[in-house]
Every structure is written in C-alpha cells, then in structure tokens.
C-alpha cells in the first residue's frame, strides 16, 4: 500500500526534521543576538553547522531541509533588504548551492559509514553466536543435544521461531507442538517431504500457512541429511523482506554447517545412532537371557522342591540329600543369573531408583529375611534403635545391596560365628553396618575388593562366587546417593562393611496436624 508506505516514511523522518528545524531556529536566535550586540556582519556560513549535523545524524532529507532553512534565515535576517526573503546578493545563491551540495555529499558518506558500522556489528554478533554454537557443540552429549544447539543457534541469529526436525518420522509423528511453537500442518507436510528427499530443498521451500504466515522449510545441510530439516517462521513479511531473510538464512546455515563439518558432527551423530541400536540389542539380549535361563530353572527348582517333600523320598536319606543338592544348586545358579543381570543393568546405566520414604529397620529386616536360609548357621546379633529417621531411598535397591553384603559375610566366616547387624543415625547419615568374625581383609584386599570380578586370592579355591557382589552393592548404593566403607583389623580379625546413606531430616514432609484424630 503506497499511501501507508509514504506515511511510514514521513513518520520515520519526522523526528529528524523537527530536530533540524529546532537547531536552525536556535542558531538563528544566537546569530541574531550576536549581530545585534557585537555587530557581526555575515553569519550565513555558520548555517553549515546544522547542515552537517543533520546530514550525519538524520540523513539526506533533514540535511536538505537544514540547507534551505539556513539560506532562507540568512536571507531574511542578515542580508539586505532585511526581513525579506528577496535575495540581492549573488553570494547567497552560491551559498545555497554550496549548502545543498555539502548536505548531499556528507549525508551520503554518513549513511555509508553507518551501514558499514552496522554490518561490522552484525558480523561480530554472528561470529560471537557461531563461536557460542561451536562451543556448545563441543560439549554436546548426544544427538538431541546437537539438534537443540542447531535449533537455538538459528533462532538466536534469525530472531525468528525455528523448529528442527531430526528425521521425517520426527515430523510426521509430532502433533505440531514443538518447544512452545505451533507448527501448522502444511509446514509439517513440507518438512516430511524435504526430510524424506521427495522434494529437493537445498534452497528451501516457502510455505504460506493460514493468514499469510510465511514459513521457510529447508535441509540444514545440502550434503548431509543427519542434521535434519528446519522450519523457520518468517511471520508476515513483504516479498522483498522475506527474500532478504532467505539470503540471511543461507549465510547462517552455511556458517553453521561448516562448523558442523569441521567438528565431524555428522560422523558423531551416525555413530551415536549405531550405539543406541547396540544398546537396544543388549536390552533385548538381557531380557531374553533372563527369560530363557530362568524358565528351565523354574522347572528344575520347582520339581526339586516337590521331590524333596514327596512322601516316597522321606525314608531315603541319600536320595533326599541328592534332591536337596539339586535344589540348592539351582538356587545358587538363579542368584548368579540375577547378579549377571544386575551387573549388565548397571553398566548399561539402566538402574532407575524408585525413591520413597522408607524405614531403615524395614530394609534391614527384609534383607535378613531374604538371607535367612543362607545365614541359618550363623548367629545374628541385631541392633535396631526404635527412633531411626526415615530415609529417602529406593528401599529395594538398598535391601539388595545389603543381601550382597550378608552373602559376603557368610562366605568369609565360619559356621557358628556371629554376624552383627546394626543401623544408626550418625552425623546426618544413616549407617547400616554388617560385621563378621571371619577372615578379615589384608591391606591389598581392601583396595581391590570393589573391582568387578575380583575375588580375594586367599579364598579363590575355597569359596564360590563370581566376584560381582560387592561391585553391584556399591553401584546400587551409589544410585541412592550413598557409599559403602570397609574396615578390618587385619587378616583373621573379621570385616565390617558399612552402607552410608544421606538423611535429609529437614526434608521429611510434615504430617498434617490432625493426621490421627
């Protein structure tokens, strides 16, 4: 709309023009006083000052107005005939030409300088953004981090809403709501087409969504599809402006992809994809091993327990002993499988604690209950104060760690010895300790006992086990924000293993006052 445009232009120029007029007015007042007081003859050259100021500050329109006003003012006030615009002196005509010439030249120079300055500033911002972008890429942890970095970088540089889609599936699966931006359906369709290569979009596709909302859809990099497809919301821009924006998007993306290529990000992304597939494979393997090994084991153990209780076997001591061996070994095998599964879960980072408020006494008691068979020929000395604070942990994981520690205590002590089990709150921590009267630890054993698959040389021949137990216990306790300490007076003097867990007393939620009416 030309009328509106003209109005816009006027509005833009108006402050400059007003300032110019004010400047000329003030100058005239000053000059007039000076001519009157000191008897200055000619003041017209002084009108170059507003011309220069207007040209550098407010552009060509204001400068020309300054020139004309200056000449008019000097003609009116200072040249005979005074108080008339009539010009007798040809000097004035030359002044006018001179003023206008200066106004045009200076304002052109100033505009050019200003543009260059603006460009330099923009370039500096771009470089700074690009630098921040590459720094962020350097610390990116996975593919989604990299994509988020690209998305944020473009959004910052373009000052527009930007949504990045990693794959065609990403776009077709999304409902259009992404990171607080609503992407119209037409744009999503275009993204899917570009991402799946059905539409060549190295230069981008412009989509006009409802109510003249313009979106640009293009691949981040023409060379590598790993970086995904972006959709940029231009808003309601004129054709010229959006062309300008497109050129700018090209420049920014060229810089960004250069950085991505330099850092070998495409390679990293495809490697990460492969890694996640390996993880999935491992998960599937764990699942099937767990099922395939345990199902026959369930039959073996179940059948053995039925046999050992069968009336026909009650008179047959030797046969019953055999059946009990089958049962015990099946149970041991089951424990070993469980340990292997736990260890695999830990090393693939699959332990997700279900944190709740738990009573430490409950955890200790149920761990003892779980080990009752194994500890049947040890004397358990239990010390559980009745006022233990609640702890915020995954009670099942802590119990499993405790079971591993009990197993260890039984393994390295002799029948009939005592096992001391105690819980106490100490120094902002909950300490669950298990002390045996067994073979103790040498200094060397104390340093290596936490490693995976490590078993003490002194016991390798006499006891069974995979050497995973303590490693699993440590990992489970670490998931709950705690640690395990070992202490021993020396070989043959018993071992104390202590689980330390944080007690966040202040954070225990208060019960409602009328909780028990």
């Amino acid at each position: 709309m030309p009328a509106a445009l003209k109005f816009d232009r006027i509005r833009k120029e108006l402050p400059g023009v007003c300032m110019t007029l004010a400047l000329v007015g003030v100058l005239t007042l000053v000059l007039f006083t000076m001519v009157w007081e000191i008897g200055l003859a000619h003041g017209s050259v002084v009108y170059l000052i507003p011309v220069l100021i207007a040209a550098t500050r407010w552009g060509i329109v204001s400068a020309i107005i300054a020139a004309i006003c200056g000449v008019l003012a000097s003609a009116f006030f200072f040249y005979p005939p005074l108080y008339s615009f009539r010009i007798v002196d040809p000097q004035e005509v030359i002044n006018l030409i001179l003023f206008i010439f200066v106004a045009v030249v200076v304002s052109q120079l100033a505009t050019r300088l200003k543009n260059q300055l603006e460009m330099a500033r923009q370039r500096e911002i771009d470089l700074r953004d690009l630098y921040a972008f590459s720094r962020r890429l350097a610390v990116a942890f996975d593919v989604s981090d990299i994509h988020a970095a690209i998305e944020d970088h473009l959004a910052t540089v373009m000052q527009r809403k930007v949504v990045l889609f990693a794959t065609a599936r990403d776009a077709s699966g999304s409902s259009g709501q992404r990171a607080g931006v609503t992407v119209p359906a037409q744009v999503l369709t275009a993204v899917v087409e570009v991402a799946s290569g059905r539409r060549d979009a190295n230069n981008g596709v412009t989509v006009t969504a409802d109510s003249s909302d313009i979106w640009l859809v293009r691949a981040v990099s023409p060379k590598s599809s790993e970086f995904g497809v972006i959709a940029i919301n231009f808003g309601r821009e004129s054709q010229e402006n959006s062309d300008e924006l497109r050129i700018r998007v090209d420049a920014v993306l060229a810089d960004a992809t250069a950085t991505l290529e330099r850092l070998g990000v495409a390679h990293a992304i495809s490697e990460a994809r492969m890694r996640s597939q390996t993880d999935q494979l491992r998960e599937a393997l764990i699942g099937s091993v767990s099922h395939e090994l345990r199902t026959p084991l369930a039959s073996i153990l179940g059948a053995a327990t039925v046999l050992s209780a069968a009336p026909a076997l009650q008179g047959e001591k030797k046969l019953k002993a055999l059946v009990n061996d089958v049962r015990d070994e099946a149970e041991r095998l089951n424990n070993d499988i469980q340990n292997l599964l736990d260890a695999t879960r830990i090393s693939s980072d699959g332990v997700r604690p279900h944190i709740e408020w738990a009573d430490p006494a409950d955890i200790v008691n149920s761990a003892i209950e779980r080990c009752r068979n194994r500890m049947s020929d040890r004397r358990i000395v239990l010390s559980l104060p009745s006022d233990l604070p609640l702890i915020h942990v995954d009670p099942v994981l802590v119990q499993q760690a405790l079971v591993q520690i009990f197993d260890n205590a039984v393994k390295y002590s002799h029948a009939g010895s005592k096992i001391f089990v105690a819980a106490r709150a100490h120094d902002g921590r909950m300490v669950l300790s298990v002390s045996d009267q067994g073979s103790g630890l040498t200094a060397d054993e104390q340093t290596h006992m936490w490693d995976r698959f490590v078993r003490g040389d002194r016991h390798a021949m006499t006891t069974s086990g995979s050497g995973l137990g303590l490693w699993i216990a440590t990992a489970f306790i670490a998931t709950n924000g705690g640690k395990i300490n070992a202490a021993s007076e020396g070989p043959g003097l018993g071992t104390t293993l202590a689980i330390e867990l944080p007690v966040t007393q202040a954070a225990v939620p208060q019960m409602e006052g009328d909780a028990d009416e």
Partner: protein
Amino acid sequence: MQMSEPSPIVLVVDDEIQIRRFLRTGFELNGFVVHEAGTGGEAIRSATLRPIDLVIVDLGLPDMDGSEVVERIRSWSSVPIIVLSVRSTEAQKVHLLELGADDYVVKPFGMAELLARVRVALRRQMRAASGEPTVKVGPLTIDLAARAVTLNDKRLTLTPKEYRLLQVLAQHAGNVVTHQHLLKEVWGSIHVHDTHYLRIFVRKLRQKIEPHPESPKILVTELGVGYRLAQSGEAENGNGNLTAAEESAKSET
C-alpha cells in the same frame, strides 16, 4: 484344611508343560485337585465352565498377557488368583495387585512357598464366605465385628487411624496390601503418595501389637510394595525358612 473337607480345586495356567507338571504333582501330593490350561483363552473358558477354588496364572502366556487373564476373571469372579512371573519389579507387583490378583510369586520358586500363599488365599476366601469376624495372627486377635484388638488376651488401646490401618490389613490377612491402597483407605485419596504417613504409623502400631517391635513378625513389610498381616502359622514360629515351611506343610495335610 481338614481331611473331611472336599479337596480344593486349583486351575494352573502356564504355557510351559514342565511347570504345569511339577505344579500338578506338588498340588496333588498335598490333596488338591488340579485343572490345567496352556493359554489365557483356555483358562478363561475353564474358569467359567467349572467350579474352581483358586487360579494360578503365569504372566507370559502365548495368546494374552497374564494380567489380562487376571482382569477378565476378576470382572465376574472373586476366586483367589495368584500370579507367577519371571519379571519382578515392584511396580509390576503393585500393578498386578491393583488389577485384583491376591498374591504373586516370582519364578523360580519352591513348592512350599507357593503352597503357603495358596493356603492363605483359600483361608481368606473361606473366612469371607463364612463371615467369620475374627482374625488371629499369633498372639494377636482382631475382632472385626466388635472392633476389639487383643494381644495375649489383653485388650489394646489403638487410636482410630491405627485401628483403621490394622482393620484394612486384617481384611486381607496373609495377603499384601499396597501402600496406595492403605493410604487411600486410611487417609483418603489425596494422600496416596505420602508413604511417610504409613511408615510412621506402622512403627507406632508395631510398638503396640508386636511382641518384638524391632523384628516384626505380625505386621510384615513387603519392600517397595506394601504391608502384609502374617498368616497364623508364620508369626508363631517366626522363621519363614524353606525347610521349616516344608515341615509344617507336610504336617498340615
């Protein structure tokens, strides 16, 4: 279970023939009548056609998930259901109990363990049918009709919330009651995630009802799942040791 009573009928649902075989032998040796089903569909048909006292269902069935069998049977029948599972996260156990399973046993398991759970479930069913108002756990007696609790014949004074907690547990005596269920029943549904309420009240309640509160034998914790009021035999001799349980299983039949 007395010998004069008719043999209880148990429906075993598992696709593994080996598991079904040892369960059949184990149950028959203990005086049960066994029906078998290899698929969920067969199980549901079987449960509708014949009178059944108890269902044992494996979670991994070829035609549907075991939890679906639980849900479908529970929609029209109150027959006790015990779930067998190789997967054993606490969240899954809670889910199964909420669907209406009475109990769960993790594979692999011993026959004695399963028999103990089966007896609890049957006893509960019988009590519900006969309207028997008292629950006895070792030295503790809970008279649900008179709202009276006695320990070694001495009357205990409980606060209303403590009694409500014990009452809910007694109604499910022998079976696990989930944290969520207890919190909802005692404190109302807005408190279902305030596990610490339970911890504090259970501790207080144990001080009153347990002969040795530091190692509770009556109000037992099922870590990560809920609480259980022990079955009568369990609380008296105090060791849920496999061999001891087998001895008692033998003497009872």
